[in-house]
């Protein structure tokens, strides 16, 4: 929908998010949501959560959710740009770190930094869970499905794809 300015702004923001995604892509979901749904009105809550569900239903790393976001807003070029932007900056840092890491391992501040970030990534994960739950629930039954799925995942070793399939059937049957 948007022109080139929109695409560049998008790329810059996603590249920045790449650097902030400490603890994986799931920790930046709240920020992604704020950026594409609340601030830029590029998509609705329903589209955001549907794309997230698609990314979960596809094989591969969670980062492909960002690919889908780019695709939804800017088409194929947006998909490629989003993928490069979310991987690129972090990739360069990871490459540099490959050469430094063993010297870091035993440093006291490495451990300090690491344990210092744990509560942050935990808080971000909880925020992501909260946000997706609220954004996806169109009725009270949405909350029930979310809670039931979470319980089954925590208590069994079932492949999550089955749970997505059951939820799809429940949706088609008009329960949600």
């Amino acid at each position, binding site marked *: 929908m948007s022109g080139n300015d929109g695409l560049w702004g998008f790329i810059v923001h996603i590249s920045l998010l790449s650097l902030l995604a400490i603890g994986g892509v799931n920790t930046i979901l709240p920020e992604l949501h704020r950026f594409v749904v609340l601030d830029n009105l590029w998509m609705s809550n329903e589209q955001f959560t549907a794309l997230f569900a698609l990314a979960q239903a596809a094989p591969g790393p969670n980062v*492909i959710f960002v690919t889908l976001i780019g695709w939804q807003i800017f088409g194929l070029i947006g998909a490629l740009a989003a993928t490069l932007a979310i991987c690129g900056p972090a990739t360069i840092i990871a490459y540099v770190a490959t050469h430094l890491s063993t010297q870091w391992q035993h440093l006291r501040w490495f451990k300090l930094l690491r344990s210092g970030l744990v509560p*942050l990534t935990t808080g971000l994960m909880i925020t992501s869970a909260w946000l997706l739950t609220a*954004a996806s629930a169109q009725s009270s039954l949405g909350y029930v499905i979310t809670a039931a799925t979470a319980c089954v995942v925590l208590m069994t070793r079932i492949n999550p794809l089955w749970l997505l399939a059951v939820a799809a059937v429940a949706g088609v049957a008009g329960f949600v």
Partner: protein
Amino acid sequence: MNTGAGPLHDGESVQAPPALTVSVTELFRAFLLVGLSGFGGVLPFVRHMLVEKRRWLTASEFTEVLGLSQLLPGPNVVNISIYVGARFAGIAGATSALLGLMVMPVVLVLCLGAAYTRYGDLPAVANAFRGVASAAAGLVVAMAAKIAWPVLRSGRTITIAAMVFIAMAIIKVPLVWTLAVLGPVSILWIWWRTP
């Protein structure tokens, strides 16, 4: 011993120079398989591939690489692919590992996306997606619970995690400010507590 499979980065950059040689093609193929397996995150599959199947890393090396990848920004699996690729075959290795990891998932997810745009407006499909979206949220709830359960044991972690939640979910502060303020607070808090 190393018969020319690209420049190996040994010496000070890795604790023990890798005794085995892994080619750029092998890296691509291994990560291609990893990319195709695993739903909702591929970490267990990366571990299986690198430690058990190919034996490129020992279990403790993998744990170290994982710890580093979680500290570094960016997607964890992407960081692991870069680390492993670079360790065995330099920049070419890192590039081919990353490409192998990403190419199939990106193609497949775009096919799903195209199908969604095309049929997403049909009432039955829209209804199905409402259900799937709630279930996908449930997967993240379970992941958050698994992460939070062992961590939220001290007043410090609970306070910081709660402040992150309030900042992000309720006040809707941009992530960069949340991290810039609460990151140092969290680290200083630990530093001040540890003798």
